[in-house]
């Protein structure tokens, strides 16, 4: 097993303006489940493809297991990758799909059979081995792709949005299965997604990317509670963190909607108060959102649905945030101005 490391990785595509990946340094630990999270076009897939050897970097180095592999083709890196489309070979049976990497390694037929049996057993697809990919459901295809990745016992798993082709229901259970599966085999995994729920739920650590750069690396808790800048603060969390300009300090005050409560509930003097004008309320079953404004700035507050609130639409009331839930950002650069835990 092996850790992955990117050193100063940069990628410029010919003809296409700026850098898709702009000098990234990132290292996983051995056996870690590391998630690359970011909006589409942020460069996360490009970074993954460079680690897989499918795209040559313009500058920088890729290390797997401590060795530089930058100029090696994919097949010399002993990695496995699961594509968004699963990229099953349409002209082969499931068995041959899974055995394909073993054929490449020229393993004896008997060993191939044994290993395919083992991998398909782990993923519960033993009964599908004679089918062609087009006869499988989305979930089954995903398992075949995982079995094919697993069968060669690679140094590293690279997963490119492997759940995005599943419907919402199936996705939730697949998330759970995938994480358990990774824990069991213990292979270092780099997982690309734009879905914050997947990232928060599965990652040991998350690296948030935007515009070719890494904005923050940390555990899900650190990223959510202590965003390093306004991008991370608003990209994670739904609804996102409120950002309110503070006239006196020239900073942006940031706080999560669930930390924005009526002043009467915020006891003690460590609370910062804001006048909150409520425009509209929204019931979402388990929770309730209040849409409104603090001064000119759109602001959202979140409560459990059963909370008893003396709030009227159209009225302005005193709300407050506890001082330790209040984050301060630079208005120009968007960077945090107070102490942060767990930066990269």
């Amino acid at each position, binding site marked *: 097993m092996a850790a992955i490391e990117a050193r100063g990785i940069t990628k410029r595509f*010919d*003809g296409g303006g700026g850098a898709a990946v702009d000098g990234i340094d990132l290292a996983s630990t051995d056996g870690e489940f590391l998630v690359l999270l970011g909006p589409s076009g942020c460069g996360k897939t490009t970074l993954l493809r460079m680690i*897989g*050897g*499918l795209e040559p970097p313009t500058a920088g180095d890729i290390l797997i297991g401590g060795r530089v592999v930058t100029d090696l*083709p*994919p*097949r010399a890196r002993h*990695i*496995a*990758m699961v*594509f*968004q*489309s699963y*990229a099953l*070979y*349409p*002209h082969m049976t499931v068995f041959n799909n899974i055995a*394909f*990497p073993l054929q*490449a*390694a020229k393993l004896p037929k008997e060993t191939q059979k044994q290993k395919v049996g083992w991998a398909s057993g782990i993923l519960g697809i033993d009964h599908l081995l004679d089918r062609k990919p087009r006869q499988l459901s989305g979930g089954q295809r995903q398992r075949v792709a995982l079995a*094919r990745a697993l069968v*060669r016992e690679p140094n590293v798993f690279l997963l490119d949005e492997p759940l995005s082709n599943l419907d919402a229901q199936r996705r939730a259970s697949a998330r759970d299965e995938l994480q358990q599966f990774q824990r069991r085999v213990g292979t270092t995994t780099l997982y690309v997604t734009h879905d914050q729920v997947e990232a928060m739920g599965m990652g040991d650590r998350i690296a948030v990317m935007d515009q070719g750069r890494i904005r923050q690396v940390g555990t899900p808790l650190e990223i959510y509670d202590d965003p390093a800048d306004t991008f991370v603060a608003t990209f994670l969390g739904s609804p996102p963190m409120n950002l309110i300009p503070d006239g006196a300090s020239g900073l942006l005050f940031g706080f999560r909607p669930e930390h924005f409560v009526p002043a009467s509930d915020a006891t003690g003097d460590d609370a910062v108060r804001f006048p909150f004008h409520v425009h509209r309320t929204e019931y979402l079953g388990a929770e309730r959102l209040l849409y409104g404004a603090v001064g000119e700035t759109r602001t959202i507050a979140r409560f459990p649905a059963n909370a008893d609130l003396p709030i009227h639409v159209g009225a302005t009331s005193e709300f407050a945030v506890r001082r330790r839930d209040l984050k301060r950002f630079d208005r120009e650069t968007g960077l945090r101005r107070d102490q942060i835990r767990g930066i990269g």
Partner: protein
Amino acid sequence: MAAPVYRASLPDANELARERRRARLRRFGGRSVLYSAASFFTLFAALPFAWMLLTVFKQNADLYDPNHNPFLYNSPPTLDNVRLLFEQTQYATFIRNTVFVSVFVVVITLVATVPAAYSLTRLAGRWGESLGIAIFLVYLIPPTLLFIPLSRVVAELGVRNSWWAMVVVYPSFTIPFCTWLLMGFFKSIPWDIEEQAMIDGYSRLGAIWRTVLPVSIPGLLTVVVFSLALTLHEFVYALAFVTSSAEKTISIGVTTELIRGDVYFWQSLMAAAAIVAIPVAILYNLFLDRFIAGFTLGAVKG
């Protein structure tokens, strides 16, 4: 001033009935025009072929009498003319030569176009498409512009006056055309599959061989069909480079050898043409949409 209000009133029952009658009449008129037009175009396109087929089975006494209705068999049909074609002319030789030329041209075309089309769609980056169009335009350079210098090239290669000349020269137009056709195919195959194969431990060439080629079999078939069709269609180079009858292919053999002299054996001649023309047309027709997709340079999507 208020804008004028336009409101369509709902038609009453009488109006509806009238509309319905009118629509039926219009439909009937449209159908008649449609069927007449279809008949006219079919007659125009198929006339020479119909006459060709009718002629093949006619006896001399029937055919060569201007007072006989040419569209009927005034004497019973016969196969003598076809027999004559195979037994007393070099038609069989022409067919044999055509088969040899076709096989070689198809193989050369495949060997050259598959790697080229792959390279242009996958490896050449943003230059691939432009280079592909440039190569396609080479196909439009007409044989009539090139046959004089090529006759020298053919002579230098020592294949003048032999069907090998066609084997050498024909790929110069099948390759550009089929490269472009095949590029369209490769573009429609997702990159994932071959990248997965490379991740799975194969080299780029291994990935092409094991994943790209098996899923592009329809594309390869199209290349085979069109290099075959273009070979069978070609006339000018064959005419320019081959003069001895034992080396001729069908399209020049039939038109130069069988109508030499004053005596035309029209029935056998037409048989010679029809035997080749009809199968080629059927084959071509099956792949016509692919052909047009290539020809329109992507000006038509879908």
